């Protein structure tokens, strides 16, 4: 297998420099699906996580434990559940979105929502521990405190979003089952890699893998730069 990595690197470079239209389609869809899922998961997950960090009610600890358990949800399980929900024979079948990108967004959102919520909860709970008293003294209720602490921790929340995005774009189990890996319609990077591997075209599969890694790496670097910019920028602008 010595030639394996060399061949794959070659395949990867050929892919990247060739600007293959189908590759662009696959990469574009990966980004679109995972970005949408993260946006949705962030919207609901950050609100839920912050609320959970601040609110207190009977059963609170059980809920937090349940949330932390959902962190380990395997993607195939999510895929299966969403498939059964969206199947024509299932409760939401009339939506007709199975085997389309929308179903993939639904599945990935469900997958990363617990991640976002749990990480946000941890973050906000830590902020609340030190500063909750001042907020309460100023008259902030649960919702106001949650909102203010989210604003306060917005930079750290960027890394939460990034973690979620990484999880979403590299998962294959959920999108394979609910998307069907249809050529030109629901094929994303990870399902393409799975397909090429099962066809025995390992160099191409690894090549696609490198492309995926490069993509995730580029996004990470971009966000890190933005954070640094924001850090100095906000100093200057008083934000």
């Amino acid at each position: 297998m010595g030639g394996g990595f060399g061949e794959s690197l070659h395949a990867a470079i050929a892919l990247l420099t060739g600007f293959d239209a189908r590759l662009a389609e696959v990469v574009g869809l990966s980004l679109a699906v995972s970005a949408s899922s993260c946006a949705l998961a962030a919207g609901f997950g950050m609100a839920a996580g912050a609320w959970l960090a601040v609110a207190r009610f009977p059963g609170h600890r059980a809920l937090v434990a349940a949330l932390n358990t959902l962190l380990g949800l395997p993607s195939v399980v999510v895929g299966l559940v969403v498939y059964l929900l969206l199947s024509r024979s299932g409760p939401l079948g009339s939506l007709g979105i199975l085997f389309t990108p929308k179903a993939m967004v639904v599945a990935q959102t469900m997958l990363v929502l617990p991640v976002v919520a749990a990480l946000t909860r941890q973050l906000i709970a830590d902020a609340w521990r030190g500063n909750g008293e001042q907020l309460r003294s100023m008259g902030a209720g649960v919702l106001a405190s949650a909102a203010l602490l989210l604003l306060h921790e917005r930079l750290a929340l960027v890394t939460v979003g990034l973690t979620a995005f990484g999880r979403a774009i590299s998962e294959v189990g959920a999108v394979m089952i609910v998307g069907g890996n249809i050529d030109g319609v629901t094929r994303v990077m990870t399902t393409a890699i799975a397909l090429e591997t099962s066809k025995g075209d390992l160099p191409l599969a690894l090549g696609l893998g490198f492309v995926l890694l490069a993509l995730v790496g580029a996004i990470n670097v971009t966000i890190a730069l933005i954070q640094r910019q924001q850090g100095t920028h906000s100093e200057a602008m008083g934000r």
Partner: protein
Amino acid sequence: MTAALIELHDTAVRFGALTALSGVDFVLRPGERVALVGANGSGKTTLLRLLHGQLAHDGTRRVQRDALGREPPQAMVFQRPFLLRLSVWRNLMVALWLAGVPRDERAARAAQALARVGLADQRDRPARVLSGGQQQRLALARAWAVRPRVLFLDEPTASLDPGAKREVEQLITEFAQEGQQQGLAVVMSTHNLGQAKRLATRVVYLEGGRVIVDLPTSEFFNQSLPDAAAQFVRGELPWNA
């Protein structure tokens, strides 16, 4: 006898197995400036938080309410202020929003408060890059802007250098004096007996979660006190006069 703003009757506060306060009776009237003194762990911060209504407790706590059943506005300044990662200006606006001040009044009040504490030129800077003294002045501005009837301060100058200490003390004194007419009551916990002597009209000494001495300032520093209190005063005073 003017009506009490806040009254505590036979109150106790427990944190798990630890009893932080017990058997505390306390009356706070408008215009009073109370200093809570005592060693660390004596319960002064707990009493402060209890008066402010932040703690679960045994016994009764009664607060004067207005015709609409509302509690008087209160504000608290902590040893280290919690400021949001926003500009000085926005921190003030958030406080005014939380206090329910109508939108069209907020900007005016915020500007007034900033000017009052001498931070008007800092208004667009991130609150967290201010110096310790400036941050505490901002915290005071934040409290002042909501026009409280009771102002609580928990060792407000303990973390400041001497110059900032003086500035902040000066502001507190001025606020207390200006608020006298409206019946503003001030309750401040402090280690610093000199500060208590300078600012307070009444001094309360706590030990082991109990109120040991509760006297007007002049009497507190002239009368013979119970042993423990006397020792405390002697121990603290030379360093902090």
